[in-house]
């Protein structure tokens, strides 16, 4: 064999019959053939990619991304830990099954969390979220937003009585703030970017809680309210923090601004007549629900960032600290709704097959001209608005509707015994069968029109009766059309929304109507996402099952 280097030169290729030392095919210019081919194809591939790029982008943005977002939302649960970070952490050590309320630290953490949340108006959102799990929690949070000031006012009032400056903006700023920041604030016009909040290092070391609370307050005032902290008296939360700090620390060594005022306050706190209130009692005064063990259990159960709680709800399960358990019988609605959706979709698919098969058969056996005319009639419903068609069914089926009137007129039904044909499953099935029928007929027709008439003739010439010919020869060959139509109709109907909404009443609605309700009315997007994800999984599972049983390559839309 020649060595590998000789095959790199063009001359080396010829004696080796287009192969190099390792037996690889090489091109005329001496490069390996595979590389040359890949290079030649790369341009082609890039061009193809460029051609589909707009569609790919479109699909990614409008289809893949929303689905991914939905899947994420169905497990995402950061609202609790985002809104109540301190309480979430404090709850970690609390044993929810011990049968005791959380310790005072948890209430303390919840006080600060909720105070800040209330200023941000985020506490009601959290309340609504937790209300999905335990009703009553929404009002509990709303009351907390209004009532938390009562706790701080206990301390604020006493400090104010001691020295009116404790309820003034300027003295607080002087006590806490860095001189530079204060001078910046003095010249701040309220329009330009607010100066960065800077507290003095010594005060931060001395009064950590107060410093933290004041920092949050000052930043909130500057950025959210766009007011000047030199003109806004601090929140009662800051007073509460000050009280807590003064309990722990010795301020006698402090010599910074407002040292006298602080030392006097420290003396006041040390006085046994100083009135105090525990956070727990404070919460109790706001709403006794705050002392319900069950509510704290819910908060703890939903404090992790991700939860299967939505899925549990969607499957009629309940998430408790003890684990997952089935909901009470009267609260199980989703399993029933899923079952109904599947059942009704099956009924609709079956009725479409029964009604569509003869039509498709007729169409495929008529001369082209007649078939085209009939095809227009089949497609006619597509040119009418879905809403109009559904409303037309309402007119037809309702109690005082066309069908009932006719039946009464014919004397087949008594006037007081009019048939209930709408706002129930019957109405939904009738209207949806009508609407989805073309989706069944079209694939069946396109498959049937590819079955040559000679098969039928062959079967008959072999002695088969009309029925045997149909059942043994024609029907098996039309199955791919039925399969394609069924998949189309079934998957369309399983996620159908408008028609059940209009004619379904309460007993004829689908899971999609419930999803829409959670999206637009109850705003429980997580649950809507979980229901949607389950629906997606069910459809995929059915598709998989269909592939296993019938074979997806048996599905033909034509050709």
């Amino acid at each position: 064999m020649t060595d590998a280097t000789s095959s790199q030169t063009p001359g080396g290729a010829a004696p080796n019959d287009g192969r190099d030392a390792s037996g690889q095919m090489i091109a005329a210019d001496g490069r390996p053939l595979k590389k040359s081919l890949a290079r030649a194809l790369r341009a082609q591939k890039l061009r193809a990619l460029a051609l589909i790029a707009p569609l790919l982008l479109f699909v990614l943005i409008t289809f893949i991304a929303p689905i991914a977002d939905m899947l994420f939302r169905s497990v995402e649960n950061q609202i609790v830990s985002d809104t109540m970070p301190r309480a979430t952490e404090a709850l970690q050590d609390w044993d929810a099954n011990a049968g005791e309320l959380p310790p005072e630290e948890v209430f303390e953490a919840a006080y600060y969390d909720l105070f800040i949340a209330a200023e941000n108006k985020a506490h009601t959102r959290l309340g609504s979220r937790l209300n999905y799990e335990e009703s009553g929690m929404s009002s509990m949070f709303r009351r907390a937003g209004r009532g938390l000031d009562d706790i701080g006012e206990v301390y604020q009032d006493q400090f104010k009585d001691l020295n009116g400056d404790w309820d003034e903006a300027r003295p607080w700023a002087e006590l806490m703030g860095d001189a530079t920041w204060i001078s910046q604030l003095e010249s701040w016009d309220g329009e330009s970017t607010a100066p960065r909040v800077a507290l003095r290092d010594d005060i931060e070391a001395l009064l950590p809680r107060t410093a933290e609370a004041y920092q949050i307050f000052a930043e909130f005032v500057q950025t959210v309210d766009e007011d000047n902290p030199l003109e806004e008296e601090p929140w009662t939360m800051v007073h509460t923090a000050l009280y807590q700090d003064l309990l722990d620390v010795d301020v006698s060594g402090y010599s910074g601004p407002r040292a006298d005022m602080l030392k006097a306050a420290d003396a006041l706190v040390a006085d046994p007549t100083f009135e105090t209130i525990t956070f727990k009692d404070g919460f109790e005064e706001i709403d006794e629900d705050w002392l319900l063990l069950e509510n704290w259990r819910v908060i703890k159960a939903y404090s992790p960032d991700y939860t299967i709680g939505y899925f549990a709800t969607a499957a009629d399960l309940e998430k408790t600290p003890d684990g997952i358990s089935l909901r009470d019988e009267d609260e199980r609605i989703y399993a029933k709704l899923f079952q109904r959706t599947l059942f009704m979709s099956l009924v609709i698919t079956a009725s479409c097959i029964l009604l569509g098969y003869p039509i498709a058969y007729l169409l495929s056996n008529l001369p082209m001209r007649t078939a085209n005319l009939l095809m227009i009639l089949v497609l006619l419903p597509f040119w009418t608005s879905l809403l109009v068609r559904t409303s037309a069914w309402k007119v037809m089926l309702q109690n005082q509707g066309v069908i009932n009137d006719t039946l009464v007129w014919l004397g087949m039904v008594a006037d007081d015994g009019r048939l209930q044909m709408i706002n129930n499953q019957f109405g939904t099935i009738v209207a949806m069968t009508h609407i989805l029928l073309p989706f069944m007929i079209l694939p069946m027709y396109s498959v049937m029109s590819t079955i040559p008439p000679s098969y039928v003739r062959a079967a008959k010439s072999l002695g088969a009766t009309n029925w045997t010919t149909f059942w043994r020869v024609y029907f098996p060959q039309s199955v791919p059309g039925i399969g394609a139509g069924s998949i189309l109709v079934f998957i369309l109907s399983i996620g159908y929304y408008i028609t059940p909404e209009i004619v379904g009443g309460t007993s004829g609605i689908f899971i999609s109507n419930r999803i829409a309700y959670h999206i637009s009315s109850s705003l429980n997007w997580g649950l809507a996402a979980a229901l949607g994800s389950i629906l997606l999984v069910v459809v995929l599972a059915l598709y998989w099952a269909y592939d296993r049983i019938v074979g997806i390559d048996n599905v033909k839309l034509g050709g």
Partner: protein
Amino acid sequence: MPDSSNTDAFVEFERVQKSYDGVQLVVKDLNLTMPKGEFLTMLGPSGSGKTTCLMMLAGFETATHGDIRLDGRPINNIPPHKRGIGMVFQNYALFPHMTIAENLSFPLEVRKMGKSDREAKVKRALDMVEMGAFGGRRPAQLSGGQQQRIALARALVFEPELVLMDEPLGALDKQLREKMQFEITHLAHRLGITVVYVTHDQTEALTMSDRVAVFDDGRIQQLAPPDELYEKPQNSFVAQFIGENNTLEGVVREIKGNQCLVQLDGGELIDAVPVNVSEVGERTRVSIRPERVEFNKDRLQEGVHTLKAEVLEFIYMGDIFRTRLKVAGNDEFVIKTRNAPDQVRLEPGAQIEIGWLPEDCRALDAAK
């Protein structure tokens, strides 16, 4: 007309007419009698009515008028599945969702035959077409020729006495087609079945059939054994349609027994056999097969008329030579000569004289 008491007749068409639209007749007054065991081919251009005749016999089309009898029994009102006629279709029509064995078993199943009988018959039928090993396959896994054999076996497995074949070899390539032609005729003769075979390929018709019915314009133009059809066409359509043919236009000048004198439009006189001309002065079209034209003076009969010809083109075709001549104003006149060691190769431009035996030249009806 042949009467219905004809005891030899197995298949009979009597005054059969067919119209699809009530305006035009696709089949006009068809009369045909076939004895048992015959291999009859319906040959004709597309639209000549041959397939319609086959479909009427099979029962897929009803005759607008007239009687079709099978073994003396009128079958006009018998549905196709009760006629017991085997049929082979152009596209084979093997059921794609069944295996080969299931396909063959199908006609036996619908006849409620027992399982063991069915299996035995299917096996025998498959062996008959030498496809014994293919029972478990699906039609799509077979080649065209193999599918063709299976279609044949399926049409024969329930032992029908009459088998119809609708251009069954149309989709095969030339070599395979020739092979299958022999196989089908051998099989038909061995089994003694009666076959009605439809084709538009005249070679197929000539090589396979006992008799050929040439269809045109909804009528049988000639019904005769292949040799007679080729050598003694009854009218100019058949002469044109079957094989290659030279024609010359002229007027009958003299009729003497089974010989006549025709004056061509250029004034030349030639001898011919009067076929469907009866009067002197009638216009006629004479037809001569290319291989019956003689240009070697030594071999020409004494006293016959000859024509002057100019060689236009000489084509070497291997086993034969094909020479195009200009004769009496017709520059599409072709002669064929065998490639023998002593054969003359005519040079283009050469002036020769051609002639033929009077019985090879047939005076037919004038062009329509």
